[in-house]
């Protein structure tokens, strides 16, 4: 009995010291890590809104309501320039052809046109759905309308048409699920 207590105590001292050391390390590294993560998520936002000087998360309660209604939405930010809103960005998650969902950011300018899209992560097939990473695909979203549903076509021309990647209809439609959800949310909550 006595020995058991002694052993337990020794092990307790070990874990307590280990905990203390880890707490110190965490104290030192966690602000740096938080800074890096914030920068990483701002980097893709900054690509979509190059003129913005700050990004603000939208009101938590509103985001909760939006998420309840539109399943693909996971985050929403307001892009600011000198304190004025110049647009909104929506991070969405929708299923494509790959195992993990397509996570993308859709940026919408205050004038109601699309500023563009950026991909955060996906697992679409290389050579097929993966082509959505390329600028020639992403660029077809720029300047498109938010008024009506966007549809994928092989050679987009009108203001609600974006590029359909040949042979990857499911991937093309998958990313559009997210973009269209972002578009609806914008129209419903943020357009004037």
């Amino acid at each position, binding site marked *: 009995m006595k020995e058991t207590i*002694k*052993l337990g105590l*020794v*092990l307790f001292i*070990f*874990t307590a010291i*280990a905990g203390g*050391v*880890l707490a110190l*390390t*965490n104290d030192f*590294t*966690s602000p*740096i*890590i938080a800074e*890096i993560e914030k920068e*990483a998520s701002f980097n893709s936002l900054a690509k979509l809104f190059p003129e913005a000087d700050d990004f603000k998360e939208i009101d938590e309660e509103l985001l909760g309501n939006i998420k309840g209604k539109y399943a693909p939405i996971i985050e929403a930010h307001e892009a600011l320039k000198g304190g004025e809103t110049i647009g909104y960005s929506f991070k969405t998650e929708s299923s494509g052809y790959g195992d993990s969902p397509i996570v993308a950011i859709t940026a919408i300018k205050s004038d109601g046109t699309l500023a563009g899209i950026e991909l955060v992560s996906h697992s679409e097939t290389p050579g097929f759905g993966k082509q959505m990473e390329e600028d020639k695909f992403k660029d077809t979203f720029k300047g498109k309308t938010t008024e009506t549903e966007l549809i994928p076509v092989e050679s987009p021309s009108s203001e609600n048409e974006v590029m359909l990647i040949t042979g990857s209809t499911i991937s093309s439609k998958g990313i559009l699920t997210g973009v269209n959800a972002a578009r609806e949310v914008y129209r419903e909550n943020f357009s004037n």
Partner: protein
Amino acid sequence: MKLTEIFKNGILKDNPVLVQLVGLCSVLAVTNTVLNAASMALAVIAVLVCSNVVVSLLRKVIPKKIRIPAFIVIIATFVTIVEMLMKAFAQPIYQSLGIFIPLIVVNCVILARAESFAYKNKVFISAMDGLAMGLGYGVAVILLAFIRETIGAGTLFAGTDFVINVFGKGYQPIAMFVGPSGAFIVLGILVAVFKNIIKKSEEKAIN
């Protein structure tokens, strides 16, 4: 025990990967690029040396009956420290190694060295043993990654500023070598070649 012997054991005779075949899970996973393998090797070396030093320092304090949990606490502490530091100062590498950094805790190389060496030897020599075993691990994973990256991706040192397209731009990579099956095949061949070399050198020593 002499230093040269310790290093000879760690890198050649008792090489943790190529001879003892321990800790293979991470070996197979991180050797798709040389950069990943080298970063993983550095993390393993850091943890091995630190845990060996601390275990050796505390070898008279740790009661024999609870030595294994004590070792695990020490190892897990260092792994977590390495993980936090990597996350803060080498984010891209941390992301490409992912889960395999925390999994160093259960890499049997480290627990085995604590149990069979550091718990019985003085501090300096234990640190050297950690370094030698870590180098043995490093040599093996970098060699493996070198072969897999060259054949499987046609590049070397991808992810650094010194990327080389080994066979020129037109090379069609054999993707299997980047996958797990390729890892097993290359590792098998490496182990065979390594055993053969060691056997020959031993025969030579006898004659």
